């Protein structure tokens, strides 16, 4: 009896293997790994043009390289993203696999038309990760061109661009990482919208896509992270300048390191600071429900990096003067960002969240009129900077030169 049961199990097990097959098994050499996606709008067909930057694996690692480009771009158009993706199957011999997509570039005109529908796909798809980086191609530039760029350092451009965002947000702090879920969260902000990093191609767009781009010491074209794009809801409203970007990053409390350049009064010269770390806090005062006051508190810690002046850094009084000068400069930068967001009437800085958190009842009243209130909202700044160090020297040797 026991033997028969085992035999039956064996037969059933074999049937299982035969009848179901190997589920959704796909060998690795039947996959085309996509590293970046570019999304453009084709005015003529009024369809999306999707460009997939696929990795040519044996060019990147392995012995069988033929000296071809490390990535190759496949394009197809379609009314929806999925349609475009399926259309690529006529061009690509392998399954387009999106799970390792590190970067999604949206062209300026797609962004202006609205990205809400696009992000439903990105949010819904089981392959694409929510941690994929989002970029908006600068005005007059196309996403397909960005995706086609070849970079000498970092063979796969999409990953290299993602790394550039990561690096610049740590070193310069005029950008910060914006992923799929950040964008969706931004679109859900009432009266606001996401801010997304921009990307432009510096130099020749045609040259950047050629293999010769890798062969010259000065690249013909280079994909460069640019300033922030401001959205309202799902639509692109406008682009920020460098300083506005920095102010936005600062108010959003993503500030890590940034250089500050202070011109001292009375022609005493100039001092360059580096913000080492900074803390931002936003509070809302709701005495008058129709006139909320937003207070932004910023506490940057600074380090003196360059002194083109004869001031005496050993004097504590000098520090006071320097800190006050920094405070003014920071307020100026913050103001620019706030003014820009007011002008575009998009609450990208998250003031609505602050009000809602402070007094939910008041927010419920304000909510419907927020679009009207926001451009006229009163914002107060309080910057309290602290100079923490002056690197390896206190006062410059130039100080001694002047004494003599």
């Amino acid at each position, binding site marked *: 009896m*026991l033997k028969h049961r085992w035999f039956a199990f064996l037969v059933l097990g074999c049937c*299982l*293997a035969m009848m*179901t097959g*190997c*589920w*959704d*098994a*796909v*060998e*690795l*050499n039947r*996959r085309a*790994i996509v*590293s970046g996606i570019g999304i453009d709008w084709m005015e003529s067909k009024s369809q999306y043009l999707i460009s997939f930057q696929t*990795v040519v*694996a*044996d060019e*990147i*690692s*392995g012995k*069988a390289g033929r000296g071809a480009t490390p990535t190759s771009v496949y394009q197809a158009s379609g009314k929806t993203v999925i349609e475009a993706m399926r259309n690529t199957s006529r061009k690509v011999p392998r399954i387009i*696999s999106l*799970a*390792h997509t*590190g970067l999604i570039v949206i062209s300026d005109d797609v962004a202006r038309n609205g990205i809400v529908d696009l992000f439903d796909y990105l949010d819904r798809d089981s*392959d694409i*990760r929510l941690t994929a980086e989002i970029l908006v191609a600068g005005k007059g530039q196309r996403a397909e061109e960005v995706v086609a760029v070849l970079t000498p350092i970092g063979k*796969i451009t999409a*990953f290299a661009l993602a790394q550039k965002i990561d690096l610049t947000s740590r070193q310069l702090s005029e950008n910060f990482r914006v992923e799929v879920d950040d964008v969706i969260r931004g679109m859900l902000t009432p009266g606001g919208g996401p801010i997304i990093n921009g990307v432009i191609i510096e130099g020749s767009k045609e040259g950047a896509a050629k293999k010769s781009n890798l062969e010259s010491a000065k690249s013909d074209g280079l994909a460069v992270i640019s300033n922030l794009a401001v959205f309202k809801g799902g639509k692109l409203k406008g682009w920020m300048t460098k300083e506005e970007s920095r102010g936005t990053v600062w108010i959003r409390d993503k500030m890590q390191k940034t250089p500050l350049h202070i011109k001292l009064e009375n022609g005493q010269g100039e001092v360059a600071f580096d913000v080492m770390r900074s803390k931002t806090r936003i509070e809302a005062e709701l005495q008058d429900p129709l006139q909320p006051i937003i207070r932004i508190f910023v506490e940057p810690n600074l380090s003196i990096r360059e002194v083109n002046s004869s001031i005496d850094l050993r004097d504590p009084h000098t520090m006071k003067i320097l800190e006050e000068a920094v405070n003014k400069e920071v307020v100026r930068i913050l103001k620019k960002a706030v003014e820009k967001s007011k002008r575009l009437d998009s609450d990208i800085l998250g003031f609505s969240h602050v009000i809602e958190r402070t007094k939910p009842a008041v927010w419920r009243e304000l909510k419907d009129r927020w679009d009207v209130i926001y451009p006229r909202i009163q914002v107060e700044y309080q910057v309290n900077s602290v100079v923490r160090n002056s690197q390896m020297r206190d006062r410059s040797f130039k100080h001694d030169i002047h004494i003599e």
Partner: protein
Amino acid sequence: MIGYRSRNRRKAPKKDSEELELSSKTRPSVISGNMEEQLARIRTESGDSPDIVIRRLKLGGKDNCAIVYLNGLSDPQMVNHFVMESLLHVNPDLLNKEDPEAMLKRIMEDGLAMGESRAMTEWNDIMLAILSGDTAILIEGSEKAIVAGTQGGEWRSVTEPTSQLVVRGPKDSFVESIATNISLIRRRMKSPDLWLETMKIGSVTHTHVAIMYVKGKADPEIVKEIKERIHGIKIEGILESAYIEEFIQDKTVTPFPTIYNTERPDDAAGKLLEGRIIVLVDGTPFVLVLPTVFVHFFQSPEDYAQRFDIAIVMRIVRYLCFIILILGPSVYIALTTFHYEMVPTLLLISLVAQREGVPFPAFVEAMLMEIVFEILREAGVRMPRAIGQTVSVVGALILGQAVVEAGLITPAMVIVVALTGIASFAIPAYNLSIAGRLIRFGFMVLSGMFGFYGLTLGLIVLVAHMNSLRSFGEPYLAPISPFRYKSQKDAVLRMPFKTLQSATLTASASGSGKQGNRSSTQQGIGAGSGTAEQNNGSERGDGGSNQHAVAPSAEGNRNSG
């Protein structure tokens, strides 16, 4: 009958027993006073084997005495010096006057300078004693024979263990002689509480089987159960402790060993101290330890010779190796064919590049390589030592490299297979590593068909199966499942000896608390599957005491002659 290995062998003993019955009718079971007749019978029953030495002696001038011993199994020194010399020095005048029975008594009392000598009447016992290396002294006219303990002969001397090596720790190992093995343990534990019981199993081989345990620590229920099961064994010969293991284990349908074996006396002594019972079998250096739990197979005597923190790390490494062994190739298959999104991007690109132009799917690739690895290992194990080197060089270097260069197998797969191979050697117990190798193939099929989904289901089944295993009532996964906090100190971890003293991983810790439960679990297992036959066997043994069990086998011996 528990069942023999093949049908052919099953018929043979039946024939024998028929013959045996016939011969037992014609021949008396006790010896007679006629010495010549007895000597002739010894010759005929042994087929006139030349190694049975019969030496006639004249005590008191008459041709009235003979000694019989087996050349090679008896110690010639003892036979010459203590038996023959003593006999020849007995005062012949005294002997002359006496009748044979008194003479025999006198020889026993005055003549033999032997520690071990007894008078015997049963033909079978005498024959068995001779075959074990003792010397029988027959005297004309006496219906008794003296059996002098002269067992000796050549054994392999105590050497370093070959299968359980340690860097630091005792360097001796068990040998094939059960007496030596017992002495090795006795020497480590000078306690009267260390109890020993012996029995003879095997209708032809009459192999000595001994069980040892520490009275007061070992659960008496388990001791009783073990004895019953051993007595229930019906087989012609026991040539290795594995025979016993197979007969007495709880469940047979499992790849996992449920009885631990060791060739290290220090290991065995350590297990005795935990309250476990060891079974020694004559003729093999491998000693069984019962009841066994899964964690035993990951403990090395080395653990107790090193600092505890280092020992903990070493043990964790072994568990890690077991996981790599059973899951290594299957996880690789699942990752590359089903879940490419889980592989780090740059690694994935490297894997994709390797897969370019490789003809087989990952599953076939893994199967091929694992089978090749098994072939290499099997070849290496059976090879004469001089050629063994060649196998490893040809196998590991040439084959591995050529297969990659020819583009048949991806280098990553070679790495995975090599890793699992090495991991299998890191497990201290060889029998568990074989079990792991077997299970690995099952997981490879599962992951080749269903990816991590199948792998997870397989793991659930595996853990459930391991939970269902019992070793003499002890849950196989104890003390992890069921979780016993106090026993954790020397299970997966090895805490310092100070804390170990209060609570070791004792076998009786589980038993003493719930002895009532034990018998019920036993029944539960019996009713389950597989062990039903065994339970029958032990029930049969139940009725008979120690002597009863030996008696039938002794009959068998007589008749077979």
